[in-house]
Protein backbone atom coordinates (compact mmCIF):
# COMPACT_ATOMS: atom_id res chain seq x y z
CA UNK A 1 0.00 0.00 0.00
CA UNK A 2 1.55 3.28 -1.01
CA UNK A 3 1.22 6.49 0.93
CA UNK A 4 2.14 10.01 -0.15
CA UNK A 5 4.56 11.82 2.16
CA UNK A 6 3.44 15.48 2.26
CA UNK A 7 6.86 17.00 2.96
CA UNK A 8 9.15 14.57 1.10
CA UNK A 9 6.59 14.88 -1.77
CA UNK A 10 6.87 11.27 -2.84
CA UNK A 11 4.89 8.05 -2.78
CA UNK A 12 6.34 5.31 -0.60
CA UNK A 13 5.27 1.87 0.52
CA UNK A 14 3.90 2.14 4.05
CA UNK A 15 4.73 -1.50 4.89
CA UNK A 16 8.36 -1.15 3.83
CA UNK A 17 8.75 1.89 6.08
CA UNK A 18 6.92 0.26 8.95
CA UNK A 19 9.12 -2.84 8.54
CA UNK A 20 12.26 -0.69 8.51
CA UNK A 21 11.09 1.06 11.68
CA UNK A 22 10.34 -2.28 13.36
CA UNK A 23 13.65 -3.88 12.29
CA UNK A 24 15.74 -0.96 13.52
CA UNK A 25 13.57 -0.77 16.64
CA UNK A 26 14.24 -4.46 17.27
CA UNK A 27 17.99 -3.93 16.98
CA UNK A 28 17.92 -0.82 19.14
CA UNK A 29 15.91 -2.65 21.81
CA UNK A 30 18.28 -5.59 21.66
CA UNK A 31 21.48 -3.55 21.83
CA UNK A 32 20.18 -0.67 23.93
CA UNK A 33 21.04 1.96 21.31
CA UNK A 34 18.89 4.66 19.74
CA UNK A 35 19.08 3.33 16.21
CA UNK A 36 19.28 6.69 14.44
CA UNK A 37 22.65 5.78 12.98
CA UNK A 38 21.02 2.77 11.28
CA UNK A 39 17.68 4.35 10.37
CA UNK A 40 19.00 7.46 8.60
CA UNK A 41 21.23 5.48 6.17
CA UNK A 42 18.37 3.02 5.55
CA UNK A 43 16.03 5.89 4.65
CA UNK A 44 18.67 7.27 2.29
CA UNK A 45 19.09 3.83 0.68
CA UNK A 46 15.29 3.87 0.22
CA UNK A 47 15.66 7.13 -1.79
CA UNK A 48 14.22 9.47 0.82
CA UNK A 49 16.06 12.77 0.25
CA UNK A 50 18.89 12.92 2.84
CA UNK A 51 17.71 16.32 4.09
CA UNK A 52 14.28 14.88 4.90
CA UNK A 53 15.74 11.63 6.30
CA UNK A 54 17.99 13.45 8.78
CA UNK A 55 15.41 15.94 10.03
CA UNK A 56 12.63 13.35 10.27
CA UNK A 57 14.84 10.88 12.09
CA UNK A 58 15.48 13.47 14.83
CA UNK A 59 11.71 13.55 15.29
CA UNK A 60 11.48 9.76 15.54
CA UNK A 61 14.25 9.60 18.15
CA UNK A 62 12.18 11.89 20.40
CA UNK A 63 9.63 9.06 20.64
CA UNK A 64 12.08 6.21 21.21
CA UNK A 65 14.24 8.12 23.71
CA UNK A 66 11.18 9.33 25.64
CA UNK A 67 9.85 5.79 25.85
CA UNK A 68 13.24 4.54 27.08
CA UNK A 69 13.85 7.42 29.48
CA UNK A 70 10.51 6.88 31.23
CA UNK A 71 11.65 3.43 32.34
CA UNK A 72 14.95 4.86 33.65
CA UNK A 73 13.23 7.74 35.45
CA UNK A 74 11.02 5.21 37.22
CA UNK A 75 14.06 3.21 38.29
CA UNK A 76 15.81 6.40 39.35
CA UNK A 77 18.79 5.84 37.05
CA UNK A 78 18.92 9.39 35.62
CA UNK A 79 21.36 12.04 36.82
CA UNK A 80 19.17 15.05 36.05
CA UNK A 81 21.84 17.63 36.90
CA UNK A 82 24.40 15.98 34.64
CA UNK A 83 21.70 15.61 31.97
CA UNK A 84 20.90 19.33 32.12
CA UNK A 85 24.58 20.29 31.76
CA UNK A 86 24.87 17.96 28.73
CA UNK A 87 21.69 19.54 27.42
CA UNK A 88 23.11 23.08 27.64
CA UNK A 89 25.90 21.98 25.31
CA UNK A 90 23.43 20.01 23.18
CA UNK A 91 21.23 23.01 22.44
CA UNK A 92 24.22 25.12 21.39
CA UNK A 93 25.54 22.27 19.24
CA UNK A 94 22.20 21.63 17.58
CA UNK A 95 21.80 25.32 16.69
CA UNK A 96 25.22 25.31 15.06
CA UNK A 97 24.45 21.99 13.36
CA UNK A 98 21.19 23.14 11.75
CA UNK A 99 22.92 26.29 10.49
CA UNK A 100 25.72 24.22 8.93
CA UNK A 101 23.08 21.85 7.53
CA UNK A 102 21.30 24.71 5.68
CA UNK A 103 24.58 26.06 4.42
CA UNK A 104 25.75 22.71 3.05
CA UNK A 105 22.36 22.14 1.47
CA UNK A 106 22.44 25.43 -0.39
CA UNK A 107 25.84 24.67 -1.90
CA UNK A 108 24.85 21.10 -2.81
CA UNK A 109 27.28 19.31 -0.49
CA UNK A 110 24.87 18.10 2.19
CA UNK A 111 24.53 14.51 0.94
CA UNK A 112 28.29 14.14 0.66
CA UNK A 113 29.02 15.47 4.16
CA UNK A 114 26.31 13.26 5.69
CA UNK A 115 27.86 10.21 4.00
CA UNK A 116 31.41 11.12 5.03
CA UNK A 117 30.41 11.76 8.65
CA UNK A 118 28.64 8.42 8.75
CA UNK A 119 31.59 6.56 7.28
CA UNK A 120 34.03 8.19 9.73
CA UNK A 121 31.90 7.73 12.86
CA UNK A 122 30.49 4.32 12.04
CA UNK A 123 33.90 3.10 10.89
CA UNK A 124 35.78 4.13 13.99
CA UNK A 125 33.12 3.18 16.53
CA UNK A 126 32.31 -0.09 14.76
CA UNK A 127 35.99 -1.11 14.72
CA UNK A 128 36.55 -0.18 18.37
CA UNK A 129 33.43 -2.02 19.43
CA UNK A 130 34.24 -5.15 17.43
CA UNK A 131 37.87 -5.33 18.59
CA UNK A 132 36.98 -4.67 22.22
CA UNK A 133 34.21 -7.26 22.30
CA UNK A 134 36.22 -9.93 20.45
CA UNK A 135 38.97 -9.47 23.04
CA UNK A 136 36.41 -9.76 25.81
CA UNK A 137 34.94 -12.93 24.30
CA UNK A 138 38.43 -14.46 24.06
CA UNK A 139 39.24 -13.48 27.62
CA UNK A 140 35.94 -14.87 28.89
CA UNK A 141 36.73 -18.15 27.13
CA UNK A 142 40.23 -18.29 28.63
CA UNK A 143 39.06 -17.45 32.14
CA UNK A 144 35.62 -19.00 31.85
CA UNK A 145 33.84 -16.11 33.56
CA UNK A 146 32.25 -12.69 33.21
CA UNK A 147 34.51 -9.86 32.17
CA UNK A 148 34.48 -6.39 33.63
CA UNK A 149 35.02 -3.41 31.38
CA UNK A 150 38.35 -1.89 32.36
CA UNK A 151 38.45 1.82 33.04
CA UNK A 152 41.47 3.99 32.41
CA UNK A 153 43.64 5.37 35.22
CA UNK A 154 42.19 7.77 37.77
CA UNK A 155 43.95 11.09 37.25
CA UNK A 156 43.33 12.22 33.67
CA UNK A 157 43.60 15.77 32.33
CA UNK A 158 39.80 16.05 32.31
CA UNK A 159 39.72 16.06 36.07
CA UNK A 160 42.20 18.92 36.21
CA UNK A 161 39.86 21.35 34.40
CA UNK A 162 38.26 24.31 36.24
CA UNK A 163 34.54 25.11 36.91
CA UNK A 164 34.01 21.98 38.91
CA UNK A 165 30.51 20.90 39.87
CA UNK A 166 29.15 18.20 42.10
CA UNK A 167 26.94 15.57 40.48
CA UNK A 168 25.44 13.69 43.43
CA UNK A 169 23.72 10.89 41.60
CA UNK A 170 26.88 10.03 39.66
CA UNK A 171 29.06 10.59 42.76
CA UNK A 172 31.30 12.85 40.67
CA UNK A 173 33.05 16.16 41.27
CA UNK A 174 33.73 17.22 37.73
CA UNK A 175 34.45 20.27 35.57
CA UNK A 176 31.44 21.53 33.56
CA UNK A 177 33.62 22.13 30.49
CA UNK A 178 34.01 18.54 29.18
CA UNK A 179 30.32 17.87 29.93
CA UNK A 180 29.15 20.86 27.88
CA UNK A 181 31.63 20.15 25.07
CA UNK A 182 30.45 16.54 24.86
CA UNK A 183 26.83 17.70 24.80
CA UNK A 184 27.68 20.17 22.05
CA UNK A 185 29.35 17.55 19.87
CA UNK A 186 26.31 15.33 20.22
CA UNK A 187 24.03 18.26 19.38
CA UNK A 188 25.90 18.97 16.15
CA UNK A 189 25.67 15.30 15.18
CA UNK A 190 21.94 15.23 15.95
CA UNK A 191 21.36 18.07 13.52
CA UNK A 192 23.63 16.98 10.67
CA UNK A 193 23.41 13.20 10.91
CA UNK A 194 19.91 12.62 12.32
CA UNK A 195 21.10 10.59 15.28
CA UNK A 196 20.55 10.85 19.02
CA UNK A 197 24.28 10.54 19.54
CA UNK A 198 24.07 7.88 22.25
CA UNK A 199 26.73 5.84 20.46
CA UNK A 200 29.22 8.67 21.11
CA UNK A 201 27.87 9.94 24.40
CA UNK A 202 27.66 6.60 26.24
CA UNK A 203 31.29 5.54 25.69
CA UNK A 204 32.49 9.11 26.32
CA UNK A 205 30.58 9.26 29.61
CA UNK A 206 31.96 5.90 30.73
CA UNK A 207 35.56 6.26 29.63
CA UNK A 208 36.22 10.02 29.77
CA UNK A 209 33.88 11.37 32.44
CA UNK A 210 33.78 8.09 34.42
CA UNK A 211 30.05 8.29 35.07
CA UNK A 212 28.85 5.09 36.78
CA UNK A 213 27.44 2.66 34.19
CA UNK A 214 24.04 2.38 35.88
CA UNK A 215 23.15 6.05 35.26
CA UNK A 216 24.86 6.44 31.87
CA UNK A 217 22.05 5.16 29.62
CA UNK A 218 19.23 6.92 31.49
CA UNK A 219 21.10 10.23 31.60
CA UNK A 220 22.04 10.11 27.93
CA UNK A 221 18.42 9.28 26.96
CA UNK A 222 17.27 12.21 29.10
CA UNK A 223 19.56 14.56 27.20
CA UNK A 224 18.64 13.04 23.80
CA UNK A 225 14.90 13.70 24.31
CA UNK A 226 15.48 17.42 24.63
CA UNK A 227 18.19 17.80 22.02
CA UNK A 228 16.22 15.89 19.36
CA UNK A 229 13.03 17.80 20.27
CA UNK A 230 14.88 21.05 19.86
CA UNK A 231 16.49 19.83 16.61
CA UNK A 232 13.06 18.82 15.25
CA UNK A 233 11.69 22.31 15.91
CA UNK A 234 14.73 24.11 14.48
CA UNK A 235 14.78 21.88 11.38
CA UNK A 236 11.06 22.58 10.92
CA UNK A 237 11.49 26.33 11.08
CA UNK A 238 14.77 26.56 9.14
CA UNK A 239 14.55 23.88 6.47
CA UNK A 240 10.95 22.58 6.51
CA UNK A 241 12.26 19.05 6.10
CA UNK A 242 10.55 17.21 8.97
CA UNK A 243 7.97 14.84 7.45
CA UNK A 244 5.52 14.05 10.23
CA UNK A 245 3.83 11.24 8.31
CA UNK A 246 7.15 9.49 7.70
CA UNK A 247 8.19 10.10 11.31
CA UNK A 248 4.96 8.66 12.68
CA UNK A 249 5.20 5.43 10.65
CA UNK A 250 8.80 4.95 11.82
CA UNK A 251 7.92 5.77 15.44
CA UNK A 252 5.16 3.20 15.63
CA UNK A 253 7.29 0.53 13.95
CA UNK A 254 10.23 1.48 16.13
CA UNK A 255 8.57 1.33 19.54
CA UNK A 256 6.95 -2.02 18.75
CA UNK A 257 10.19 -3.51 17.41
CA UNK A 258 12.10 -2.26 20.46
CA UNK A 259 9.92 -4.29 22.84
CA UNK A 260 10.71 -7.56 21.06
CA UNK A 261 14.34 -6.59 20.66
CA UNK A 262 14.73 -5.97 24.39
CA UNK A 263 13.34 -9.43 25.13
CA UNK A 264 15.72 -11.03 22.60
CA UNK A 265 18.63 -9.06 24.05
CA UNK A 266 18.29 -10.70 27.46
CA UNK A 267 19.17 -14.07 25.94
CA UNK A 268 22.57 -12.95 24.62
CA UNK A 269 25.72 -12.16 26.59
CA UNK A 270 26.95 -8.56 26.77
CA UNK A 271 30.15 -9.05 24.79
CA UNK A 272 28.40 -11.13 22.12
CA UNK A 273 25.84 -8.35 21.74
CA UNK A 274 28.58 -5.75 21.40
CA UNK A 275 30.41 -7.84 18.81
CA UNK A 276 27.24 -8.27 16.74
CA UNK A 277 26.43 -4.56 16.95
CA UNK A 278 30.02 -3.70 16.02
CA UNK A 279 29.80 -5.85 12.89
CA UNK A 280 26.44 -4.36 11.97
CA UNK A 281 27.81 -0.84 12.31
CA UNK A 282 30.78 -1.78 10.11
CA UNK A 283 28.46 -3.23 7.46
CA UNK A 284 26.44 0.01 7.22
CA UNK A 285 29.71 1.97 7.11
CA UNK A 286 31.05 -0.22 4.29
CA UNK A 287 27.91 0.25 2.24
CA UNK A 288 27.99 4.06 2.59
CA UNK A 289 31.73 4.16 1.93
CA UNK A 290 31.33 2.01 -1.18
CA UNK A 291 28.78 4.48 -2.58
CA UNK A 292 31.28 7.31 -2.13
CA UNK A 293 34.05 5.53 -4.00
CA UNK A 294 32.44 3.70 -6.92
CA UNK A 295 31.80 5.68 -10.07
CA UNK A 296 28.18 6.85 -9.86
CA UNK A 297 25.83 5.62 -12.60
CA UNK A 298 25.04 9.24 -13.35
CA UNK A 299 27.58 12.00 -12.80
CA UNK A 300 24.90 14.66 -13.10
CA UNK A 301 22.11 15.53 -10.74
CA UNK A 302 19.28 18.05 -10.98
CA UNK A 303 17.60 19.97 -8.19
CA UNK A 304 14.53 22.00 -9.10
CA UNK A 305 13.23 24.83 -6.94
CA UNK A 306 10.16 22.77 -6.15
CA UNK A 307 12.44 20.06 -4.74
CA UNK A 308 14.07 22.47 -2.34
CA UNK A 309 10.77 23.64 -0.99
CA UNK A 310 11.72 27.29 -1.49
CA UNK A 311 8.69 29.43 -2.27
Amino acid at each position, binding site marked *: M*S*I*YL*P*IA*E*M*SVNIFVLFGMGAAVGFLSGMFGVGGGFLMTPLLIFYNIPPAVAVATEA*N*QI*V*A*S*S*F*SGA*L*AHLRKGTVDVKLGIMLLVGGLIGSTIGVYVFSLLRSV*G*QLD*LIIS*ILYVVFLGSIGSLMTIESLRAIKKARDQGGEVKVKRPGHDSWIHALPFKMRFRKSKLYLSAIPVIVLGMLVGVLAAIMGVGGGFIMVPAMIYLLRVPTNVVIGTSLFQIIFVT*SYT*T*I*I*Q*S*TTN*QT*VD*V*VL*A*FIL*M*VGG*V*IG*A*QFGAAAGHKLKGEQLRALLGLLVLAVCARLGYD*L*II*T*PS*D*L*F*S*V*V*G*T*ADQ*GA*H
Partner: protein
Amino acid sequence: MMIKIRLLFLFLIFACSTSAAASMEKLQMGVSVDLVPVSSGFSGQDIVIFGSIENAEQAPLYRGEYDVIVEVIGEMEEAVVRKKERIGGIWVNAAAREYTGVPSYYSVLSRNNLGEVSDLSVLNNMGVGVDNLKARPVDRGNIQEFLTQGEFSSALRRIRIEQGLFSEDSAALEQLSPSLFRATLSLPPNVPIGVHTVKAYLFRDGKKLDEIENSFQVRKVGFERWMYDFAHNQSLLYGIMCVFLAIFTGWAANAIFRKN
Protein backbone atom coordinates in the same frame (compact mmCIF):
# COMPACT_ATOMS: atom_id res chain seq x y z
CA MET B 1 -18.76 8.98 -14.61
CA MET B 2 -18.82 12.77 -14.39
CA ILE B 3 -15.91 12.95 -16.72
CA LYS B 4 -17.59 10.68 -19.25
CA ILE B 5 -20.76 12.77 -19.30
CA ARG B 6 -18.72 15.92 -19.63
CA LEU B 7 -16.67 14.45 -22.46
CA LEU B 8 -19.74 13.33 -24.36
CA PHE B 9 -21.37 16.71 -23.92
CA LEU B 10 -18.35 18.58 -25.22
CA PHE B 11 -17.97 16.20 -28.14
CA LEU B 12 -21.54 16.93 -29.12
CA ILE B 13 -20.94 20.67 -29.04
CA PHE B 14 -17.81 20.30 -31.11
CA ALA B 15 -19.49 17.95 -33.54
CA CYS B 16 -22.32 20.44 -34.12
CA SER B 17 -20.14 23.50 -34.35
CA THR B 18 -17.90 21.97 -36.99
CA SER B 19 -20.67 22.30 -39.56
CA ALA B 20 -20.80 26.08 -39.20
CA ALA B 21 -19.38 27.75 -42.26
CA ALA B 22 -16.48 30.23 -42.18
CA SER B 23 -13.26 30.77 -44.04
CA MET B 24 -10.47 29.96 -41.54
CA GLU B 25 -9.62 26.62 -39.99
CA LYS B 26 -10.00 26.74 -36.22
CA LEU B 27 -9.10 24.44 -33.39
CA GLN B 28 -11.27 23.73 -30.35
CA MET B 29 -10.05 21.91 -27.30
CA GLY B 30 -11.16 20.76 -23.86
CA VAL B 31 -9.49 18.95 -20.96
CA SER B 32 -11.30 16.21 -19.03
CA VAL B 33 -10.42 17.72 -15.66
CA ASP B 34 -9.69 21.16 -14.22
CA LEU B 35 -8.06 19.74 -11.12
CA VAL B 36 -5.82 16.74 -10.55
CA PRO B 37 -6.00 16.13 -6.81
CA VAL B 38 -2.88 14.75 -5.16
CA SER B 39 -3.82 12.93 -1.96
CA SER B 40 -2.29 10.12 0.08
CA GLY B 41 -2.95 7.38 -2.47
CA PHE B 42 -1.87 9.35 -5.55
CA SER B 43 -0.08 7.19 -8.07
CA GLY B 44 -0.49 9.21 -11.24
CA GLN B 45 -3.64 9.89 -13.27
CA ASP B 46 -4.78 9.71 -16.86
CA ILE B 47 -6.33 12.82 -18.27
CA VAL B 48 -8.03 13.21 -21.63
CA ILE B 49 -7.57 16.16 -23.96
CA PHE B 50 -10.10 16.31 -26.75
CA GLY B 51 -11.01 18.69 -29.48
CA SER B 52 -12.08 19.31 -33.01
CA ILE B 53 -10.88 20.89 -36.22
CA GLU B 54 -13.43 23.44 -37.41
CA ASN B 55 -14.06 25.13 -40.72
CA ALA B 56 -11.75 22.72 -42.43
CA GLU B 57 -11.86 22.14 -46.17
CA GLN B 58 -13.77 18.92 -46.41
CA ALA B 59 -11.72 17.05 -49.02
CA PRO B 60 -8.32 17.49 -47.36
CA LEU B 61 -9.97 16.85 -43.99
CA TYR B 62 -11.17 13.44 -45.14
CA ARG B 63 -7.79 12.69 -46.69
CA GLY B 64 -6.28 13.31 -43.23
CA GLU B 65 -4.12 16.23 -44.31
CA TYR B 66 -4.72 18.14 -41.10
CA ASP B 67 -2.62 17.23 -38.12
CA VAL B 68 -2.71 18.16 -34.45
CA ILE B 69 0.04 18.37 -31.83
CA VAL B 70 -0.80 18.76 -28.14
CA GLU B 71 1.71 20.15 -25.65
CA VAL B 72 1.36 19.97 -21.85
CA ILE B 73 3.68 22.35 -19.99
CA GLY B 74 4.13 22.62 -16.23
CA GLU B 75 5.11 25.78 -14.40
CA MET B 76 8.49 27.34 -15.13
CA GLU B 77 11.02 26.82 -12.37
CA GLU B 78 14.68 27.18 -11.54
CA ALA B 79 16.94 24.16 -11.67
CA VAL B 80 20.51 23.54 -10.62
CA VAL B 81 22.49 20.89 -12.50
CA ARG B 82 25.55 19.52 -10.72
CA LYS B 83 28.33 17.36 -12.01
CA LYS B 84 30.29 14.98 -9.81
CA GLU B 85 34.05 14.75 -10.00
CA ARG B 86 36.45 12.43 -8.26
CA ILE B 87 38.40 14.40 -5.67
CA GLY B 88 40.78 12.48 -3.40
CA GLY B 89 39.12 9.19 -4.32
CA ILE B 90 35.61 10.38 -3.44
CA TRP B 91 32.91 11.53 -5.82
CA VAL B 92 32.02 15.13 -5.02
CA ASN B 93 29.57 17.59 -6.58
CA ALA B 94 31.99 19.96 -8.27
CA ALA B 95 30.83 22.15 -11.17
CA ALA B 96 27.25 23.42 -11.23
CA ARG B 97 25.04 25.41 -13.59
CA GLU B 98 21.84 27.16 -12.73
CA TYR B 99 18.92 27.59 -15.10
CA THR B 100 15.71 29.57 -15.03
CA GLY B 101 12.65 29.05 -17.20
CA VAL B 102 12.81 25.27 -17.05
CA PRO B 103 9.39 23.63 -17.35
CA SER B 104 8.71 21.46 -14.30
CA TYR B 105 6.83 19.09 -16.63
CA TYR B 106 6.67 18.76 -20.41
CA SER B 107 4.84 16.33 -22.63
CA VAL B 108 4.04 16.28 -26.36
CA LEU B 109 1.21 14.16 -27.71
CA SER B 110 0.69 13.60 -31.40
CA ARG B 111 -0.69 11.14 -33.92
CA ASN B 112 2.40 11.02 -36.11
CA ASN B 113 6.09 11.53 -35.48
CA LEU B 114 6.71 15.25 -35.06
CA GLY B 115 8.99 15.23 -38.10
CA GLU B 116 6.08 14.05 -40.26
CA VAL B 117 3.76 16.78 -39.00
CA SER B 118 6.03 19.66 -39.83
CA ASP B 119 9.58 20.64 -40.66
CA LEU B 120 11.97 20.26 -37.77
CA SER B 121 13.03 23.88 -38.22
CA VAL B 122 9.44 25.06 -37.78
CA LEU B 123 9.04 23.01 -34.59
CA ASN B 124 12.44 24.20 -33.53
CA ASN B 125 11.36 27.84 -33.79
CA MET B 126 8.14 27.13 -31.95
CA GLY B 127 10.03 25.24 -29.22
CA VAL B 128 7.74 22.23 -29.63
CA GLY B 129 9.12 18.80 -28.81
CA VAL B 130 11.46 17.48 -26.15
CA ASP B 131 14.42 18.09 -28.48
CA ASN B 132 13.44 21.74 -28.87
CA LEU B 133 13.06 22.72 -25.23
CA LYS B 134 14.94 25.79 -24.05
CA ALA B 135 16.03 27.20 -20.72
CA ARG B 136 18.04 30.22 -19.59
CA PRO B 137 21.42 29.55 -17.98
CA VAL B 138 21.86 32.14 -15.24
CA ASP B 139 25.60 32.56 -15.87
CA ARG B 140 25.05 33.41 -19.54
CA GLY B 141 22.97 36.54 -19.09
CA ASN B 142 19.68 34.64 -19.15
CA ILE B 143 19.84 34.03 -22.90
CA GLN B 144 17.72 31.08 -23.96
CA GLU B 145 19.60 27.99 -24.95
CA PHE B 146 18.43 24.66 -26.31
CA LEU B 147 18.59 21.84 -23.82
CA THR B 148 20.42 19.75 -26.39
CA GLN B 149 23.40 22.14 -26.25
CA GLY B 150 26.22 21.53 -23.80
CA GLU B 151 26.68 18.73 -21.30
CA PHE B 152 24.82 20.38 -18.41
CA SER B 153 21.77 21.25 -20.50
CA SER B 154 21.71 17.78 -22.05
CA ALA B 155 22.03 16.21 -18.59
CA LEU B 156 19.06 18.26 -17.38
CA ARG B 157 16.99 17.11 -20.35
CA ARG B 158 18.09 13.48 -20.04
CA ILE B 159 17.42 13.25 -16.28
CA ARG B 160 13.98 14.81 -16.65
CA ILE B 161 13.21 12.28 -19.38
CA GLU B 162 14.37 9.43 -17.13
CA GLN B 163 12.17 10.75 -14.32
CA GLY B 164 9.20 10.74 -16.69
CA LEU B 165 8.87 14.52 -16.45
CA PHE B 166 9.75 15.22 -20.09
CA SER B 167 8.10 12.94 -22.63
CA GLU B 168 7.03 12.60 -26.22
CA ASP B 169 4.33 10.18 -27.37
CA SER B 170 3.56 10.02 -31.07
CA ALA B 171 0.76 7.49 -30.60
CA ALA B 172 -1.19 9.17 -27.80
CA LEU B 173 -3.41 11.21 -30.10
CA GLU B 174 -6.28 9.44 -31.87
CA GLN B 175 -8.40 10.79 -34.66
CA LEU B 176 -11.96 9.77 -33.72
CA SER B 177 -13.45 11.18 -36.89
CA PRO B 178 -11.82 13.35 -39.55
CA SER B 179 -12.46 16.41 -37.38
CA LEU B 180 -12.47 15.04 -33.84
CA PHE B 181 -9.38 14.08 -31.90
CA ARG B 182 -8.62 12.75 -28.46
CA ALA B 183 -5.27 12.55 -26.67
CA THR B 184 -4.66 10.59 -23.48
CA LEU B 185 -1.98 11.85 -21.13
CA SER B 186 -0.71 9.63 -18.31
CA LEU B 187 0.50 11.93 -15.57
CA PRO B 188 3.25 10.20 -13.57
CA PRO B 189 3.09 9.88 -9.73
CA ASN B 190 5.82 12.53 -9.46
CA VAL B 191 3.94 15.10 -11.58
CA PRO B 192 4.83 18.54 -10.25
CA ILE B 193 2.29 20.59 -8.35
CA GLY B 194 1.04 23.69 -10.15
CA VAL B 195 -0.86 24.96 -13.18
CA HIS B 196 -0.19 22.95 -16.32
CA THR B 197 -0.82 24.67 -19.61
CA VAL B 198 -2.26 22.62 -22.46
CA LYS B 199 -1.56 23.93 -25.96
CA ALA B 200 -2.83 22.43 -29.21
CA TYR B 201 -1.52 23.31 -32.67
CA LEU B 202 -3.26 22.67 -35.98
CA PHE B 203 -1.01 21.92 -38.95
CA ARG B 204 -1.57 21.39 -42.64
CA ASP B 205 1.24 20.75 -45.10
CA GLY B 206 3.72 21.49 -42.32
CA LYS B 207 2.27 24.94 -41.74
CA LYS B 208 0.74 26.02 -38.45
CA LEU B 209 -2.79 27.25 -39.02
CA ASP B 210 -4.12 27.76 -35.53
CA GLU B 211 -3.33 27.24 -31.88
CA ILE B 212 -5.41 27.15 -28.73
CA GLU B 213 -4.63 27.08 -25.05
CA ASN B 214 -6.25 25.57 -21.98
CA SER B 215 -5.05 24.47 -18.57
CA PHE B 216 -5.54 22.24 -15.57
CA GLN B 217 -4.16 22.33 -12.08
CA VAL B 218 -2.29 19.69 -10.10
CA ARG B 219 -2.88 20.38 -6.44
CA LYS B 220 -2.39 18.67 -3.13
CA VAL B 221 -5.74 18.23 -1.45
CA GLY B 222 -7.08 17.28 1.95
CA PHE B 223 -4.66 16.14 4.61
CA GLU B 224 -1.55 16.38 2.40
CA ARG B 225 -2.27 19.95 1.39
CA TRP B 226 -3.08 20.95 4.93
CA MET B 227 0.11 19.34 6.26
CA TYR B 228 2.32 20.89 3.59
CA ASP B 229 0.86 24.37 4.12
CA PHE B 230 1.10 23.95 7.87
CA ALA B 231 4.78 22.93 7.67
CA HIS B 232 5.63 25.88 5.45
CA ASN B 233 3.43 28.66 6.81
CA GLN B 234 3.41 27.83 10.52
CA SER B 235 6.70 26.00 10.77
CA LEU B 236 7.26 26.66 14.49
CA LEU B 237 3.84 25.32 15.42
CA TYR B 238 4.37 22.38 13.07
CA GLY B 239 7.69 21.52 14.73
CA ILE B 240 6.12 21.69 18.19
CA MET B 241 3.29 19.44 16.99
CA CYS B 242 5.84 16.90 15.66
CA VAL B 243 7.57 16.84 19.05
CA PHE B 244 4.30 16.38 20.95
CA LEU B 245 3.27 13.57 18.62
CA ALA B 246 6.58 11.84 19.32
CA ILE B 247 6.30 12.33 23.09
CA PHE B 248 2.78 10.96 23.03
CA THR B 249 3.81 7.93 20.92
CA GLY B 250 6.74 7.21 23.25
CA TRP B 251 4.51 7.53 26.30
CA ALA B 252 1.77 5.36 24.77
CA ALA B 253 4.26 2.63 23.84
CA ASN B 254 5.64 2.69 27.36
CA ALA B 255 2.18 2.52 28.92
CA ILE B 256 0.91 -0.28 26.65
CA PHE B 257 3.93 -2.54 26.91
CA ARG B 258 4.39 -2.05 30.64
CA LYS B 259 0.98 -3.58 31.30
CA ASN B 260 1.76 -6.66 29.25
